């Protein structure tokens, strides 16, 4: 029994960090679900909105000793303001334009953080950021519980949106924008609003990520995080609130938790080849799962089972 316990939970630090990453991808995926799956906004700049929150939080904590709650509020606002601006810019663009513009936003954020030195520390990094409380060895676990709570709240909110008049308006905008323009609500304001709201959430998640890594580097804001979120969401089904969770378990859960913890890979492979291989696989997976949009692989399998069932009747 003890051997099994040691095998499963023998590296709690790895397990906890992997689960942090998992929760972060799930949270961002749920927010992206509201943008892409519900409103039809293909945001390819998730890392930018998340990074704006992460660095706003870090700068305020490191340079100005701002308290946790105020810094988190500022991180949320930073994501929200950036989202509103991006939303205004992309509201009248076609799908390709939206992808390019949001990727540009993430690139601008990345380059601004990397080239600025006084506040962000540039490539040298910015730190250190601590947890807002210290309860000894259990601090990590407590933070994980908070992240579980936050992602749970996001999931609850996304499910609520689906059943609300606001959600119906978003779905209408996402599925038939020309027709939605002739409803009695302005489409542009709707799109700007949902971009601001969900990007604020991404900014808040960025703020919550700061204490996990303690030290911020621009390399944390590369397109890799966006690809991870999109892959998870599209794999799990972009139109379902649960899609991001299912997809994240199948991708991040497999790579950042299961393989890292339970497959005896040499340290060199784990540190160098593994992250690169992971991104290559995620990229290939993304291309593959795009074929199964919008239900995702699991949704498609379920539909095929349903159709087979009907044909037997």
């Amino acid at each position, binding site marked *: 029994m003890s051997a099994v316990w040691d095998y499963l939970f023998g590296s709690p630090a790895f397990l906890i960090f992997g689960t942090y990453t998992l929760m972060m991808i799930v949270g961002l995926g749920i927010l992206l679900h509201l943008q892409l799956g519900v409103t039809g906004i293909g945001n390819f700049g998730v890392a930018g909105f998340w990074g704006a929150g992460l660095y706003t939080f870090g700068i305020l904590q490191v340079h100005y000793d701002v308290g946790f709650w105020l810094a988190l509020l500022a991180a949320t606002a930073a994501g929200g303001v950036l989202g509103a601006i991006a939303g205004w810019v992309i509201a009248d663009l076609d799908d390709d334009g939206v992808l390019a513009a949001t990727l540009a936003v993430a690139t601008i954020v990345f380059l601004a953080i990397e080239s600025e030195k006084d506040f962000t520390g540039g490539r040298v990094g910015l730190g250190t950021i601590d947890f807002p409380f210290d309860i000894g060895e259990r601090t990590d676990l407590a933070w994980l519980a908070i992240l579980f709570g936050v992602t749970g709240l996001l999931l609850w909110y996304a499910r609520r949106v689906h059943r609300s008049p606001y959600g*119906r308006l978003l779905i209408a905008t*996402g*599925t038939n924008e*020309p*027709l939605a*323009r*002739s409803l009695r609500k302005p489409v542009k304001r709707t799109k700007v609003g949902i971009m601001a709201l969900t990007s604020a959430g991404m900014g808040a998640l960025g703020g919550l990520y700061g204490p996990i890594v303690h030290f911020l580097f621009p390399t944390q804001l590369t397109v890799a995080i966006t690809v991870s979120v999109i892959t998870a969401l599209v794999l799990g089904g972009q139109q379902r609130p649960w899609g991001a969770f299912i997809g994240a378990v199948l991708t991040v859960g497999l790579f950042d938790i299961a393989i890292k913890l339970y497959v005896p890979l040499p340290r060199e492979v784990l540190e160098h080849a593994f992250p690169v291989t992971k991104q290559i696989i995620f990229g290939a997976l993304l291309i593959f799962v795009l074929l199964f949009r919008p239900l995702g692989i699991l949704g498609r399998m379920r539909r095929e089972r349903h159709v087979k069932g009907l044909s037997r009747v």
Partner: protein
Amino acid sequence: MFEASGVWTGYDDIDVIKGLDFTVGEEVFAILGANGAGKTTLLSAIAGLLPLTSGHIRFNGETISGIPPWRIAALGIGFVPQERGVFPDLTVLDNLRVGGLVAKQARGERIDEIMELFPALAGLRNQRAGTLSGGETKMVAAGRALMQDARLLLMDEPTAGLSPLYVENFFDRIRQIHETKQVAIIITEQNATKALEVADRAMVLSLGEAMTIVDAHDLTTDQLRKGYKI
């Protein structure tokens, strides 16, 4: 109620509608014409989805040309496009609800009225609109527009692609909407015979110009042939 004066509109550098003048009262007004006559373009311009090159459109004394489509909808103009007239991922009920987002009358009452008007929709309430047949889709589209407190309904070839049985039924519904809900209707059609049965007046549109505007029962075959360039 509705007035279009010197309306020019089109796409890029191409003028599709060339200086139209017409008025519509509390009536069913049919716009007839062959493919390419400019019927869809004209309705899109009235709905605010296409800007005017020149001229102006007034509705209930207010100039509506140049204002955004959602404000035009808020003034009481409902648009039923020829294609893609529903939100496919929403259920029938949700399509109606989204139409009645800011309607004054209680939404439940309004939905009941739509179900009375289109009884076939009652059994399809929870079905996704994207899975409906062509005729059912047209009913949902019309119902959605009516949910918006529309005082003027723009219907772009509502029976295009429907089976003859549906066509008959749909034209009955159009007349019923006008008479029971006191909604004025501008309807574009290629099926002149059926449209003239329900219309009070008709305009024959040919290459963006009004060939004739007359009472529906006064329209002659010659006038139609001239407009359709047969």
